C-alpha cells in the first residue's frame, strides 16, 4: 500500500506546477550558492598562496644576510636585524569552506608577523569589503539548507491532510481502508528526497573538487539528514493537528519564522546584550596610550628592560637606528597593557558561546548551522582561533627577538632557524558541538512518532 502511495505522490509531485517551480528555484539557488562558494574558495587559495608585496624581506634573504654577517662580511646596518624577521600567517580555507562561507569575508585570513607589530596593529588593511553587501551576507549552501530548505518543504507539504479533508477525499479514502500515516509519510518522502539530493550533490561536488576528508562530508550529510527529519516532523505535526489549510499554512509558517528567523537573531542579540564585549575603540585607546607612554620615557623603559635581562651587554653599535628599540619596547608595552582587555574580551566571548550553546537548542537552525560550520572549517570559532594563534606567535617572536633588538645586536642564525614558520592549527571541534545534531535528530524522531500516533487516530 505504501508503495502505491509513493507512486501516486511521485506522479503528483512531477505534475504539480507548485512543486516544479519550487524545485527549479531551489536547484537554481543551490547552483548559485555552490558556484559562489567555489569562486570564493579559489580566490582565497590565490590570496593565501602568494607572499604579499609588502613582505619586503623574505625569510631566506634575511637568513642569508645573517649568515654573511656571521661569516664576517660587511652588510648594511639595517640588514638581518631581528625586527625585520617576518613571518606570513595565513588561514587557508579548509576543504569544505566553500559550502559555508557566508560570513568569512568579515574576518582576516592573512597577516604579516614581525617585531614592528603589536596586538592592536597585527591585522591591518583588511576591511575593504562593501559594508552594505557584507551586511546582506552571501548565499551559501549552509543558508540554503538551514533557511530555504524548510520553507520549500512547508510550501509543498503544509496541506497534506487538510487538502484531502477539505475536498472530501479523506473520508472516501479512509472508508476504503486507507491509512493517513502512509499518506503523510509518502508525501513527505517524495518531497524531501529531491530537496535532499540537490544539496547532497553539491556537497559531494565540493568534496571531490577540494579533496575533503570523508568524516567532514559525513557530518555535513548527517546534519542535513537530521535537519530534514526535524522539519518533516514539524510539518507532519502541524498538518495533522490543523483542521483547515489556512491554519496549517499559518502554523507551519509561524514555526519556520520563529525557528529560522526570529530565534537565531534573538539568541545572537541576547548573547551580545548579556555579555557585551569591551569596545574595540577602547582597546585602541589603551594601546595608543601605552605606546605613547613608552615613547615618552624611552630611556627609562630601556633601562628597565635591561634590568629585567641582566645577562645583556650594552652594545655600542651606533649605526643601529634608535627607532628599532623604541618600536620594539612600545610594542611589548602595548601588548602588556592591553592584555587585561583581551582577557576580558575572551572571557565575555566564552560566556557568549556558553549562552549560545545553552539556548541554541531552542533553534535547530542554529544547532545545524553550528554543526555545518564546524564540518566546513568556517565560522567564528575558526577565525577566533586564527587570531589567537597569530597573537600568540607574535608574542613568542617578540620574546625571541627582544634582547637582541634592545641591545642593538642580531640574533644568531641557529636561534633564528629554531623559530618555526606559522602554521595554522584548526581548532579541535569538541564532540559537544555535534551533540546538538543528535538532539535535533531525536527531536525530529520524537515529532515523527507523535505525528504517526496522531495520524493513526485520524478518522
Amino acid at each position: 500500500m505504501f508503495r502505491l502511495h509513493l507512486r501516486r505522490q511521485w506522479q503528483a509531485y512531477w505534475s504539480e506546477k507548485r512543486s516544479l517551480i519550487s524545485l527549479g528555484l531551489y536547484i537554481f539557488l543551490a547552483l548559485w550558492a555552490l558556484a559562489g562558494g567555489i569562486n570564493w574558495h579559489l580566490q582565497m587559495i590565490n590570496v593565501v598562496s602568494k607572499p604579499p608585496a609588502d613582505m619586503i624581506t623574505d625569510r631566506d634573504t634575511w637568513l642569508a644576510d645573517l649568515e654573511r654577517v656571521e661569516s664576517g662580511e660587511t652588510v648594511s646596518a639595517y640588514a638581518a636585524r631581528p625586527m625585520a624577521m617576518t613571518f606570513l600567517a595565513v588561514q587557508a580555507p579548509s576543504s569544505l569552506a566553500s559550502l559555508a562561507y557566508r560570513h568569512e569575508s568579515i574576518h582576516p585570513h592573512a597577516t604579516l608577523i614581525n617585531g614592528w607589530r603589536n596586538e592592536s596593529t597585527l591585522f591591518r588593511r583588511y576591511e575593504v569589503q562593501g559594508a552594505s553587501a557584507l551586511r546582506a551576507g552571501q548565499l551559501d549552501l549552509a543558508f540554503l539548507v538551514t533557511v530555504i530548505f524548510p520553507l520549500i518543504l512547508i510550501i509543498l507539504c503544509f496541506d497534506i491532510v487538510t487538502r484531502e479533508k477539505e475536498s472530501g477525499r479523506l473520508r472516501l479514502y479512509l472508508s476504503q481502508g486507507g491509512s493517513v500515516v502512509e499518506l503523510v509519510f509518502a508525501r513527505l518522502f517524495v518531497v524531501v528526497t529531491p530537496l535532499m539530493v540537490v544539496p547532497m550533490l553539491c556537497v559531494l561536488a565540493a568534496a571531490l573538487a577540494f579533496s575533503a576528508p570523508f568524516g567532514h562530508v559525513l557530518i555535513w550529510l548527517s546534519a542535513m539528514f537530521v535537519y530534514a527529519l526535524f522539519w518533516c516532523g514539524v510539518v507532519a505535526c502541524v498538518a495533522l493537528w490543523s483542521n483547515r489549510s489556512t491554519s496549517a499554512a499559518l502554523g507551519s509558517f509561524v514555526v519556520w519564522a520563529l525557528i529560522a528567523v526570529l530565534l537565531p537573531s534573538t539568541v545572537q542579540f541576547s548573547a551580545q546584550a548579556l555579555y557585551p564585549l569591551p569596545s574595540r575603540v577602547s582597546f585602541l585607546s589603551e594601546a595608543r596610550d601605552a605606546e605613547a607612554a613608552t615613547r615618552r620615557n624611552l630611556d627609562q623603559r630601556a633601562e628597565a628592560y635591561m634590568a629585567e635581562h641582566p645577562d645583556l651587554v650594552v652594545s655600542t653599535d651606533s649605526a643601529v637606528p634608535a627607532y628599532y628599540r623604541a618600536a620594539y619596547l612600545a610594542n611589548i608595552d602595548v601588548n602588556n597593557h592591553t592584555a587585561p582587555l583581551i582577557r576580558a574580551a575572551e572571557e565575555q566571548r566564552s560566556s557568549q558561546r556558553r549562552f549560545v550553546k545553552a539556548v541554541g537548542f531552542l533553534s535547530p537552525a542554529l544547532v545545524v548551522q553550528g554543526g555545518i560550520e564546524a564540518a566546513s572549517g568556517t565560522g567564528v570559532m575558526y577565525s577566533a582561533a586564527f587570531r589567537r594563534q597569530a597573537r600568540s606567535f607574535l608574542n613568542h617572536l617578540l620574546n625571541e627577538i627582544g634582547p637582541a633588538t634592545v641591545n642593538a645586536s642580531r640574533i644568531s642564525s641557529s636561534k633564528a632557524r629554531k623559530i618555526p614558520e606559522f602554521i595554522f592549527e584548526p581548532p579541535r571541534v569538541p564532540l559537544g558541538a555535534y551533540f546538538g545534531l543528535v538532539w535535533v535528530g531525536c527531536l525530529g524522531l520524537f515529532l515523527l512518532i507523535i505525528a504517526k500516533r496522531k495520524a493513526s487516530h485520524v478518522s
Partner: protein
Amino acid sequence: MMGALLQKEFLEYRRDRRLWLLGVLLFLLLSAASLDGWNRFQADASARASAVEVDRKVWVEQGDNNPHGAAHFSRYAFRPLPVLSAFDPGVFDFAGAAFWMEAHTQNPTSLRRVEDVVVHAPFSSLSPAWVVLVAGSLLVATVLFSSVSRERENGTLKALAASGLSARDFVVGKMGAPTVLIFLLVVLAMTIALGPLLLTKFNPEPTAIRVLMLLVLYFCVLLSFSFAVLWISACARSSGEAFNLSALLWIFFALASPLLAGQLATTIFPDIDEQSLRNEIQLKAQTPFWVGSAGDDAKAAQERAVEEEFGVSDFDSLGFDREALVLQAHEEFANKVYDELYGELQARHRNQDSVQRYMSVLSPLLAAQRISAGIAGTDLLAQWDFADSAEQHRREIIELLNRDMMIHGADKGFSYMADRSLWESIPDYQTSAPSLKEVVRYYFIELSAVCVWLVVMAYLAFRALKTSLVRGQ
C-alpha cells in the same frame, strides 16, 4: 454603514488571537531591541568620547619629537555616532569606526563591530528598525490575509452586498481599518523604540525632523504592504491561497530581497580582496618612489612649489630641510595613487549600492530599510563621508608636520625635535553627518519607489475590493 463596518473590523481585530499573540511578541522583541540599542549607543558614544580625548592627550603630550616620527604615530579619526543609530544601526556594524591618519599610507577604516559576534544568525541581528519592519510586516500579513477571503468563504460578502452597502463604504471600511491599525502600531512601536531618546542629551531640532520622517516612512511602507495583502485577499480563490501568496510576498520583501540584492551586487561587482589592495599600495605608492626613480618628478614639482611660494629660484638658498621636502613629495606622489586605488574601491562599493538601490524598487521593505539607515545617519553615505573627510584631514595634518620639519629642521633632518606648540597647532578631526537634503537626494529612487508602491497598492486594493463586493464573491 461605513462606521458599522469599521466597528466590525476593529471588533474582529480585537477578537483575533493571532493579532494579540504576534502583538505581544512584537512588543517584547521591540522592547528588548530598543533597550539594547540604547545601551549600545551609550556605551559606544562614551567609548568614542573617551577615545577622542585620549587621542588628543596622547598627541599633545607626546613630548619633544621629530615631526615625521610623530606623523608615523599620528592620530586617529573616530566616526561620529548619530543618536538614531540606537534605532537603526544601518551598515555601521559592518564598517570601520576609526581611521588611522598615518604618514605615507591611506588606510581603510577599521574596527568593525560585527567582528565581535560569536554566532552569526541567518538574518540581521535585532535592531528596533528591523523589528518594526520585518516583524511588523509579518504581523500585518498574518492579520490581514483573510480580511476579504474569509468573508467570501463564510458568505458574509454576499450578505454585505445584499444589504445595500455601497462599494465606497466597503472599500473605505476595509482599507480604513488597517490604516488605523498600522498608524497605531507604528506610533506605539516608535514610542517604544525611540522612548529612551527623551532621556538622552541630543540636539532636538534635526533629530525631531528625522524621527518624524522615520514615522512617516514606516507608516507608508507598512500601509503599502497591508494594501498589497488586502489586494491578495480580495483576489485569491481561498484563504489558503491568500495566505500562501501573502507569506511569499513577505518572504520576498522582508527576507529574500535584501539577500538577493547583496548577492547580486557582489556577483556583478565583486569585492577587491584585501591582499590585492595591499599589494597595489606597495607596488604603486611605496616601492616606485623609495626604490625606483618614479618619485623624481614629484620631488622636482615639490621643490618648484616651495621655491614659488617663497619667491626664490633655488631651494637650497632657503636653508630648509630637504628630507622633509622629499617626505612631502612622497605624500603628493602617493596621494594620487590612493585617489586612484581607493577611488576604484569606492566606485565598486557605490556600484554595489546601486544594484541594491535598483533591487529596492522591487521591494518597498528593502527601500525602507535603506532610507531608514539614511535618515538615521548610519548608511553608506555617512560612512563614505567619514572616510573621505578623515583622509582629507590626514593629508592636511601630514603636510603641516612635513612643512614644520622642512622650515625648522634645516641641518638637523630627522634629529630635529618639535615641541608641544606644534602638536597643539594641529587641528582636531571634526566632521558633520550628511544633511537631510543630501540624504533625500541620495535616496530619491527609494523614496519614489515607496510612494509608487503605496499609490499602486492602494489603487489595486481599491479596485479589487470594489470588484469583489459588486460581484459578491
